[in-house]
C-alpha cells in the first residue's frame, strides 16, 4: 500500500520508509510499511496494542539492533541515506535521532550530569553550563530545577523526570526526536506541559510520537498514522499501516472503515 499525501505546501521528508518488514526471529511483526515523515512536523502513530508502533519507532534510530533476533527488510531513508545500509554506524544514527521512552528513565546521576551525558560522550567542546541551561529551558524545566542542578535526577517528580529526559535528548542537538508514549506514565497536568513542549519543539525538530491517547494525537500531531494488527495463518500477529494522512483527515474524514471505528472509540 502506498499513500500520496496532498498537503498545501510541498514538505521536505526526514524519513522515508519503503516496504519495511520487521521480523523477531521467524515471527513477522510488521509487514510492508511505507511512510514518509516530514521535517519540522509532529507525526503521531496510533493503533491498538501490539500492532508494532514501538517496533517501527525504534527502527528509525536503530535501537532495535539491541534485540538479538531482530531483523529488518526494506529500506528506511534518512536524508538520502539508507539507515540499514551495512556501511551505516548505528551509533552515529542515534546521535542524530534522539529518543524519549515510555517510562521516564533519568540516569542515577545529578540533573546536570543527566543533561550533560549525551554531549560529553559526543565530545562536545563548547560551554557545558550554557548547553545544560539551554536544554533545560527548551524542555521547560529550567525554572523548576535551576537551584538544584547537583541533586539526583531521580528525586524529581514523574513529569519533571520526563522533561529531564527530553532535555537530555535535546542536549545532543539531534535532528529528529522519537517519543514512545511519553505521557503514559504522567498525570494530566504533566501531560499537558509535555504536549505544550512538543508544540514548541517542532519548530526545530522533526518529532514522531507514539500515543494511546486519541485526544493527544489530535492535539499535538500534524500527521497521523493509524496501524492495525491482524492474525496470521501461523497464529502470530502482524502489524500493518492502515492509513496515513493529515491529522484532521484521520480524525474527521478517514478513508478506511477501520480507522473510522478506531478513532471514534468503537474498537481497540
Amino acid at each position, binding site marked *: 500500500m502506498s499513500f500520496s499525501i496532498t498537503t498545501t505546501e510541498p514538505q521536505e521528508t526526514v524519513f522515508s520508509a519503503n516496504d519495511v518488514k520487521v521480523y523477531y526471529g521467524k515471527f513477522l511483526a510488521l509487514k510492508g510499511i511505507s511512510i514518509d515523515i516530514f521535517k519540522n512536523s509532529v507525526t503521531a502513530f496510533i493503533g491498538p496494542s501490539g500492532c508494532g508502533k514501538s517496533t517501527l519507532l525504534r527502527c528509525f*534510530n536503530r*535501537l532495535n539492533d*539491541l534485540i538479538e533476533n531482530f531483523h529488518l527488510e526494506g529500506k528506511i531513508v534518512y536524508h538520502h541515506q539508507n539507515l540499514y545500509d551495512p556501511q551505516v554506524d548505528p*551509533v*552515529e544514527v*542515534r*546521535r*542524530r535521532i*534522539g*529518543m524519549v*521512552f515510555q*517510562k521516564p*528513565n*533519568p*540516569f*542515577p*546521576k545529578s540533573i546536570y550530569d543527566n543533561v550533560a*551525558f*549525551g554531549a*560529553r*560522550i*559526543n565530545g562536545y567542546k563548547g560551554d557545558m553550563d550554557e548547553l545544560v541551561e539551554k536544554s533545560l529551558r527548551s524542555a521547560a524545566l529550567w525554572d523548576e530545577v535551576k537551584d538544584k542542578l547537583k541533586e*539526583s535526577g531521580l528525586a524529581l517528580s514523574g513529569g519533571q523526570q520526563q522533561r529531564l*529526559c527530553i532535555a*537530555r*535528548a535535546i542536549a*545532543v542537538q539531534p535532528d529528529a526526536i522519537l517519543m514512545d508514549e511519553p505521557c503514559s506514565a504522567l498525570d494530566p497536568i504533566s501531560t499537558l506541559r509535555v504536549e505544550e513542549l512538543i508544540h514548541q519543539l517542532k519548530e526545530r525538530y522533526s518529532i514522531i510520537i507514539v500515543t494511546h491517547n486519541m485526544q493527544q494525537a489530535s492535539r499535538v500531531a500534524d500527521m497521523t498514522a493509524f496501524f492495525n494488527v491482524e492474525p496470521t495463518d501461523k497464529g502470530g500477529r502482524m502489524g500493518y499501516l492502515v492509513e496515513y494522512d493529515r491529522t484532521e483527515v484521520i480524525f474527521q474524514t478517514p478513508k478506511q472503515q477501520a480507522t473510522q471505528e478506531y478513532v471514534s472509540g468503537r474498537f481497540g
Partner: protein
Amino acid sequence: MPESIPETANSTLTSGNLHRSLSPRTLFNEVMTALAFLCGALALIPLLAVLSYVAIQGFSSLNFSVFTELPPPPMSQGGGFGNAIAGTLIMVGIAAAIAVPVGVLAAIYLTEFSDPHTVRWIRFATNVLSGVPSIIAGVFAYGIVVLTFVGLKWGSYSPIAGGVALAVLMLPIIVRTTDESLQLVPSEMRQAAVGLGATKFQTVWGVVLPAALPAIVTGTTLAVARASGETAPLIFTALFSPFWPQIWPPQQFIAPTASLAVLVYNFAIVPFKNQQQLAWAASLILVLMVLLTSIISRWAIRQRS
C-alpha cells in the same frame, strides 16, 4: 444468588465488633511472631557472644606497643605484632589489586557482552570456585607461585604467593556480587544511553557501572573481609616471620611474611600467657580492620553521590 453475597458480607462487617479478640487466627499470628522473634534472637546470640568475647579479651591486652613491636620469643614479656598487621595489609592489598579488576571486568563481560550459553558455564564455574575450601586455594598458589619462585631461585614463600591465594578466594565473591548488581541495573538505563549515541563502552562505563557501584563496593568489602581472616592458604604460601616485611630491594620482599590470621593461629595454641594475650589483641585488630574497611567504603560511596 449472586446479589445476596455482598449484602451478607456487608452486614457482618458493619455489625461485627471491631475489638481485638482471641480468635484462632489472632492467636496463630501472635505465636508465629513470637517464634520468629525467638529465632532472630537465637541467631544473634553466637554472633554477639563471639564479638563481645573478642572485644573484652582483646581490649584488655591491647596497648600501643602491639602496633610497633615484633612478636616476642616464648616466655618473655611485652612485644607486639606490627609486622603481622603490615603483612596482612600487604597481602590483602595484593589480592585486591588482582581480584577487583579481574572480577569486575569478568562480571561486566558476563552481563554486558557474553552470549547466554557461555554465561551459564562461567556462572557455574564461579559458583564452584566460591565453594572451594580455602586450603585448596593455598595449595594452588603454592603450586604456581611458591614452586615457580623456588625454580627461579628467587626464594620460596612470599607475600606475593599469599596475595595470589587470597585473590583466588576473593575472585568468586567479587564476580558474583558484581554480576548480580549489574543485572539489577534496569535495561531502560542502557537503552537511554544507547539512544543518546553512546557506544557499548560508554554505556557500561558512564551509566551501568556507576549505577551498580554501591553494590560492587559492598561485594568487594565482603571479599576483603573474608580474605583478611583466612589462615590456611597463608600457611602454604606466606608462612610466618618474626621480622618486619621488607619491600625493598625486591629480593628481600620474597620472604616468609607474617599475617594476623597466622599469628592468631600460632599464638593461640601455645601455653604461654603473653602469647595468648597477643593472639586476643590480634583477633580484635583483625575484626576492627574489617569493620573499618566497611565503614570507609560506605563513606566513600556516600561522598560520590
